[in-house]
């Protein structure tokens, strides 16, 4: 997020796109509800009539995968009606002409034929967004989990830059991070292209810095991202895998291919708190401590580095991941320093990156969470990024063009499936499926669909149905819901006995490799036997 979560309460307009905030980020949604109560405008762009759309001033119920067309048309309106911030564009950006060119033909009427959103609504959204001073964009995986995810993000960034909604209180470009420490994991260099603090592995100067600190020579080429790693596994080029705290089988798209790859691996080590689906392929399993049993930091969506503290003992012989990692490094002959606590590990990382060099456990303990960049011990942290224009040089506009998703519905697979998370469960479900409240609200997998799509297939609420794509098939319970567009269905990913990612498409975005979880084609067939009424989700 360029801005901070508490700023949301001061905003005058929220453009929420590809984020079912009340379910995936309930506490940020509370800030949004507070802003709406105060009188802020809310524009929601989502294929489903999600909870937020009920309190929105405008709901753009676009077809899944057509975000680029919508965003181009909004740019078109803002440029055509001269609602751009010329001063900001002149001072802080480059290549505005490229976007003018790219959106020249993207009229709202054209976008209406692609997105299904009325041209007038697109115009209204564009005008409101461009003419409101404190206007923030909030998005999450509905934007990124597409083969054109990077283009979606560029499209949003173009809107932000052309209207100057950057470096301003309660505005900005705000991706809401899906997991407790996605931000922190990236910050710490768990990336094939970056060392800690976003220093490129291909930059000789950065490499020299880390070679010097770690006392070894380091590989100069970029590594493989997770999506490619999974595919290279199936092709036999990745032969050994060390997996910490992720259920690859349940979390990665096209699970059949992931399983095939894991089967071909010569050696797999898994380090986790529970046995998960991936454990079937592991040669060695190391029991880890959970968040309540160890010390360290998590970094949240608004770049806030906060403490995690040990409250209880790990069960049995389970140990904190950092202790296991140090011992394993020593077992393979690398002299990992004898850290007394995670505070010392953090200090080593902070010393190697300007962004965090002012942050330490001692400071967080004394002052509470600190938002990076925080270069010195007396720096207060940075709630709002780009306070004096873009952080490094100028913001570069990116020309984008609409192209359809990788796999669209056809005669054989006539329904468009999107996937996501619900309020009550979390990812692979290892934690929430062991919690009584979430389980009494949602017991099993379901498929949310429009009543007419159900009716023409002879399906009723609570029926059991087989869902098939080109990659696999699973069973789920039908939930007829007024939130759906006709022709579109939606499923959560939380249920190991009915793994939705058997269906999803592993075609990845060209730059990030992120799989297209939000669009694939499926077909339904009825299943004999009783539908479980108890498994139908409560209306939410």
């Amino acid at each position, binding site marked *: 997020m360029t801005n901070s979560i508490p700023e949301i309460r001061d905003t005058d307009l929220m453009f929420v796109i590809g984020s079912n905030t009340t379910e995936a980020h309930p506490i940020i949604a509370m800030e949004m*509800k507070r802003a709406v109560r105060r009188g802020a405008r809310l524009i929601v762009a989502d294929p489903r009539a999600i909870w937020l759309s009920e309190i929105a001033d405008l709901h753009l119920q676009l077809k899944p995968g057509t975000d680029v067309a919508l965003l181009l048309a909004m740019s078109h309106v803002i440029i055509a009606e001269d609602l751009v911030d010329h001063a900001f564009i002149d001072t802080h950006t480059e290549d505005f002409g490229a976007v003018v060119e790219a959106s020249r033909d993207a009229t709202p009427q054209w976008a209406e034929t692609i997105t299904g959103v009325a041209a007038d609504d697109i115009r209204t959204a564009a005008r409101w967004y461009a003419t409101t001073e404190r206007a923030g964009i909030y998005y999450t995986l509905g934007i990124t989990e597409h083969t054109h995810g990077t283009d979606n993000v560029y499209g949003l960034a173009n809107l932000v830059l052309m209207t100057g909604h950057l470096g301003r209180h309660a505005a900005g470009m705000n991706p809401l991070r899906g997991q407790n420490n*996605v931000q922190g994991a990236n910050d710490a260099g768990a990336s094939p292209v970056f060392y800690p603090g976003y220093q490129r592995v291909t930059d000789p100067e950065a490499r020299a810095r880390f070679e010097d600190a770690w006392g070894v020579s380091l590989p100069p080429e970029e590594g493989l991202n*997770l999506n490619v790693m999974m595919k290279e596994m199936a092709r036999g080029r990745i032969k050994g895998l060390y997996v910490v705290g992720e259920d690859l089988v349940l979390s990665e798209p096209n699970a059949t291919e992931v399983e095939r790859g894991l089967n071909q691996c010569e050696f797999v080590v898994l380090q986790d708190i*529970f046995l998960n689906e991936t454990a079937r392929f592991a040669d060695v399993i190391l029991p880890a401590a959970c968040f*309540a049993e160890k010390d360290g930091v998590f970094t949240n969506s608004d770049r806030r580095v906060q403490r995690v503290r040990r409250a209880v003992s790990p069960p049995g012989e389970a140990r904190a991941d950092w202790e296991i990692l140090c011992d394993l490094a020593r077992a393979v002959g690398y002299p990992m320093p004898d850290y007394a606590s*995670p505070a010392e590990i953090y200090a080593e990382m902070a010393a190697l990156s300007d962004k965090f060099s002012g942050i330490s456990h001692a400071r967080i303990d004394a002052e509470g969470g600190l938002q990076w960049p925080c270069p010195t011990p007396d720096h207060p942290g940075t709630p709002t990024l780009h306070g004096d224009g873009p952080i490094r040089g100028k913001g570069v506009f990116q020309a984008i063009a609409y192209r359809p998703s990788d796999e669209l519905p056809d005669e054989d697979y006539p329904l468009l499936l999107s996937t996501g998370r619900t309020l009550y469960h979390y990812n692979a479900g290892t934690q929430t499926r062991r919690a009584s409240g979430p389980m009494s609200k949602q017991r099993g997998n379901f498929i949310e669909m429009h009543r007419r799509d159900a009716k023409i297939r002879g399906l009723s609420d609570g029926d059991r149905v087989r869902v098939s794509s080109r990659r696999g098939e699973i069973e789920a319970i039908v939930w007829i819901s007024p939130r759906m567009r006709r022709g579109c269905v939606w499923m959560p990913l939380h249920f190991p006995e009915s793994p939705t990612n058997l269906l999803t498409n592993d075609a990845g975005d060209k730059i990030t490799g992120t799989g297209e979880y939000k669009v694939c084609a499926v077909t339904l067939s009825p299943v004999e036997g009783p539908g479980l009424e108890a498994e139908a989700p409560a209306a939410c």
Partner: protein
Amino acid sequence: MSQSVRITVDGVEVQVEPGATVLTAATTAGIAVPTLCHEARVDPMGSCRMCLVEIEGQRRLQPSCAFPASDGMVVHTDSGRVRRHRRVLLSMYLADHELDEDGLPKERGTGNRLRQHVLEHGTGPTLPPIAADRSYREDDNPYVHFDPEACILCNLCVRYCDEVEAVSAITLANRGSHTTIATADQRSLLDTSCELCGGCIAVCPTGAMTERPALGLDWRREEKIRTTCNFCGVGCQLDLHVADDRIVRITSPEPGRTVNDGNLCVKGRFAYEFVHHDDRLTTPLIRGGDGELRPASWPEALAAAAAGLLGVKERHGADALGFVSSSRCTGEENYLVQKLARAAFGTNNCHQCAAT
């Protein structure tokens, strides 16, 4: 533009923003006024009458939580009249409340502010107990327990549910002394729009709303440890309440201090059962020649992991290894995974689910 308002509270002159309440002015002056139904995140209601103060020029005592401060106003929060009012009010609350053997309001959950007020301000005449039927429905939800005998009808839970969580699952029901907190048709919370966020528990001043899993526990024995939630990316701060090396309750730090402003969701507040679950991995496991996993010691398991990974590196090169780190783990641990991949094994094949 806006001029600040000067007001005198118990002889202390303070300046507050226009529109600020008398209670805010008193707090600014460093004077504590007892409250029950007041909560910064919801609109004032002035229903509990606990915060009544004397304002010069006003015939009656006024609720300081709802009364706007105005220029030149003179307020007394501890006059004889105010003290007399508090004692009579607390007597009335006692007559309608379940008491313990000491004649004080019973304690539930994480304390009872009514009890504190009685101890601090005393009571007036003993009034005959009010016996009204407020029998609560049986509710099979696993998290939120409501005891009508401890409820003072301040309506804070209902207002939080309406204004902050905005799901409006609960409401005031019935009339007169039968009034209580209920759901539509007395349904279980599981069959309403309730999202089990537990905000009703967090705002309840008397413990009438409590965490069902923590019923009967002595909150004085709980140690609180501040940490960060392990679910989504909001970074809510949590206080883990620990007794006998187990998490027994989770609460939020007080509003206004952290990014979550006193709020939590169903997962953050309640979904900690996994921590102490029997399914947790408690010992290293190695897959034997028969394909079965068997328990192993740490030295055995670490040696097996090291040998297996080094074997792949020797046979196929370092880039035949992949390291999948975890955005669920700490920053320090992610730092160590990439250091392990790069420095110990010599590959940049290190990533985590941030790609998805």
